[in-house]
């Protein structure tokens, strides 16, 4: 089993449901429950804890609520949409019309998801022969999309492009195999042409099967125009309902639409009414009858695809992830005919347009203040507002304590020995410009089936302020003595109870002693995942004095003297120390 590097996770208070948002319920709770709540220690192994524990870097801090905020509880707002491949910003108006994919020339390989390059098919001309007149003109078409990672190219699906730019719009007009795909307008034009030349029979509603097969997008477009047309016609026919400008998306039109369907309802109680209403409009509303109106007969004959499967090898078939990425991008121009939304052969795959990415600002869920706001420009990596928890609460790092000559050499496998006391050094680093008082609390044994014993040798200490490095350097001579006095128990080489181990400019190290539990399973019972990890729940409470915030200062203007207020922050954290080995492993 791989050893585990120590970690510190911090619990966001948002997971404590009663403490947040619902103050009205608090008085109704009885005292016993309150008592229970106070005694309750945080269990990092509880299934819910998975969703509330975060490394310090992921946490934000609201300066108005004086509380930690996690990615789960902040409210996000999108600042900018951009393509992660060409790094172009996409205005949100385009997003509505064009969808959430890059509409330039950014594509991902449908086989391996690597980026696709537009490559000229023309072989580079021999420089010895054509050097003179070839220097000005670059490579010319046709162009293909090629993957530099798996060497897939759009030749495999029979697609070539005339121009090296605007691949998205070019691809929309091309089917796999290279035939052009008609847009709705082109199809209409063609139909008109056919009608005028007299080949009306082929497009007659009575034999829709002979019509060409539409892809999903055009079918939907046809259906929509057909029904909105039907709706406007029937509305104008009915005198009571003259709101002909109602779109198909309005709920009242939908209700009316449903009414038409209820005409032929089997419910006998409504029959009289339905018939009288229905008769008046029966002729006015009908279903789609041909391809132009959006009728598409299901292709139940799959013999063609079956024979294709017979002829193909395993490598011609798509994998689940490939099919998923095709479906995810719900490519309107995917395949024709639609294979029930899935492409089964690699020859039906299409290049995947790159999904857009966003820059987001974050708000505090309680006071709605912005706690993180990036620059809207894509190229900029700056933040206008960035209130991260790391600049408010102390960072905790964990290290095994090794005193030469006192501690035995560490086991080579990096596992903890069960029932053998081990000492660990917790280093708290203060990011604030004020000294903070830290109080720690842990349960004496860790929760869970295998209870390890935990002793914090110094649960209460003070960390000096995070002063300027230069200040420290300038007065290093004088501070040297004061620090030495405070050196803690390190000098003795043995950790003493109630004494810190070592202190620095803005950090303090203390010793935690653990006695790992013996991991023993009974009756062939399996260990649950990570049950052999020694994880200590620790309650950290920090106190400091800070300049009063703007609101309080404004309340007492002209007092002149500095207003200081006491701040306090308390939260649970989970310290992962290491994995516990078994007795047998260690011999």
């Amino acid at each position, binding site marked *: 089993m791989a050893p585990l590097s120590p970690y510190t996770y911090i619990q966001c208070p948002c997971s404590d449901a009663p403490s947040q948002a619902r103050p009205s319920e608090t008085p109704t709770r009885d005292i016993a429950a309150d008592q229970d709540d106070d005694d309750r220690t945080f269990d990092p192994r509880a299934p819910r804890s998975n969703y509330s524990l975060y490394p*310090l*870097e*992921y*946490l*934000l801090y609201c300066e108005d609520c004086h509380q930690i905020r996690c*990615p789960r509880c902040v409210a996000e707002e999108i600042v900018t949409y*951009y393509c*992660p*491949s*060409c*790094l172009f910003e996409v205005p949100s108006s385009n997003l509505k019309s064009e969808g959430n994919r890059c509409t330039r020339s950014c594509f991902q390989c449908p086989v*391996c*998801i*690597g*980026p696709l*390059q537009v490559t000229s098919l023309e072989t*580079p*001309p*021999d*420089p010895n022969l054509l*050097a003179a007149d*070839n*220097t000005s003109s*670059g490579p010319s078409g046709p162009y293909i999309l090629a*993957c*530099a*990672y*798996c060497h897939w190219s759009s030749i495999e699906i029979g697609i070539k492009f005339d121009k090296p730019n605007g691949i998205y719009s070019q691809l929309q007009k091309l089917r796999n195999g290279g035939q052009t795909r008609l847009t709705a307008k082109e199809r209409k034009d063609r139909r008109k042409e056919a009608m005028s030349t007299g080949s009306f029979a082929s497009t007659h509603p009575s034999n829709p099967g002979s019509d060409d097969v539409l892809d999903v997008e055009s079918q939907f477009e046809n259906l929509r125009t057909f029904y909105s047309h039907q709706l406007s016609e029937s509305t104008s026919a009915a005198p009571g309902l003259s709101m002909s400008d109602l779109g198909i998306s309005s709920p009242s039109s939908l209700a009316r639409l449903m009414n038409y369907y209820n005409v032929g309802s089997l419910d006998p109680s409504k029959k009289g009414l339905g018939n009288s209403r229905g008769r008046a409009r029966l002729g006015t509303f009908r279903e789609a009858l041909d391809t132009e109106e959006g009728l598409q007969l299901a292709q139940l004959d799959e013999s063609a695809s079956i024979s294709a499967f017979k002829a193909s090898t395993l490598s011609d078939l798509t994998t689940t992830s490939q099919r998923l990425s095709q479906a995810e991008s719900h490519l309107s121009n995917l395949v024709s005919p639609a294979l029930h939304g899935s492409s089964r052969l690699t020859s039906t795959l299409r290049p995947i347009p790159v999904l857009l*990415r966003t820059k987001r600002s*974050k708000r505090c869920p309680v006071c709605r203040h912005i706690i*993180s706001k990036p620059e809207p420009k*894509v190229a900029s*990596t700056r*933040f206008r507002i*960035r209130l*991260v*928890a*790391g600049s408010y609460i102390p960072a905790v790092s964990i290290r095994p304590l090794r005193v030469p000559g006192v501690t035995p050499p560490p086991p080579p496998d990096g596992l903890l020995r069960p029932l053998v006391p081990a000492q660990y050094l917790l280093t708290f680093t203060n990011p604030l410009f004020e000294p903070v008082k830290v109080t720690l609390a842990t349960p004496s044994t860790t929760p869970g089936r295998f209870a390890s014993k935990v002793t914090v040798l110094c649960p209460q200490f003070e960390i000096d302020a995070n002063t300027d490095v230069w200040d420290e350097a300038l007065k290093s001579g004088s501070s040297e003595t004061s620090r030495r006095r405070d050196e803690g128990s390190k000098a003795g080489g043995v950790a003493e109870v109630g004494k810190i181990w*070592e202190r*620095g400019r803005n950090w303090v190290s203390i010793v935690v002693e653990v006695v790992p539990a013996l991991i023993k399973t009974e009756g062939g019972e399996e260990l649950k995942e990570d049950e052999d990890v020694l994880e200590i729940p620790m309650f950290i409470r920090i106190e400091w004095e800070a300049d009063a915030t703007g609101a309080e200062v404004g309340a007492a203007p002209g007092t002149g003297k500095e207003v200081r207020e006491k701040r306090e922050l308390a939260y649970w954290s989970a310290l992962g120390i290491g994995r516990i080995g078994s007795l047998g492993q260690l011999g």
Partner: protein
Amino acid sequence: MSRRAPKGEYIETDTGNKVARKAILVGTQNITLGGKTVIQPEVMIRGDLSRSSASSGGSGSGNNTAISIGRYCFFSRGCCLRPPGRFYKGHFTHLPLRMGDHVFVGQNSVVQAATIGSHVHIGEGVVIGEMATIKDYTRILDGTVVPPYMTIPSFSIVAGRPARVIGEVPEGGHEAFELRELYKTVGNNVQPAPA
């Protein structure tokens, strides 16, 4: 400390670069270091793969930088920096590799990118394909293979073969890219880290 080396393992320049004597630098006249950069032993930097001057006929003699590196970069043991090459107007030519500040390259990684921004962490055993572009504040996890020509936007966490963006660098994680402290831990006479 294991990282502490016998005296004189590194050559320290006026601008604070620490270059291991056992590093293999080819074509040093085409390599620019911004200062305070650490190059560990067995690192290979191919400055000889500069823009081929044969094609442009003498015009390339002025500025022929193959690799330019910013400040506080750190190249771990066994990694390789190689300018990308490609066909351009019928000739095979190399293009410069540009790197910003605070770029960490892990052990045995191969970097052939065209541009790497600032505050980029490249893990162990990573391959970065030719002409790739990596923007600022990007973390590339161990064993990733970044395909050629790929663009990785800022604040991405990237992993996999081929690479894909698997996450975002959180707001509080920006300081972790700073390499000033790491710079102090190597050299000929380093201060021992606070115990």
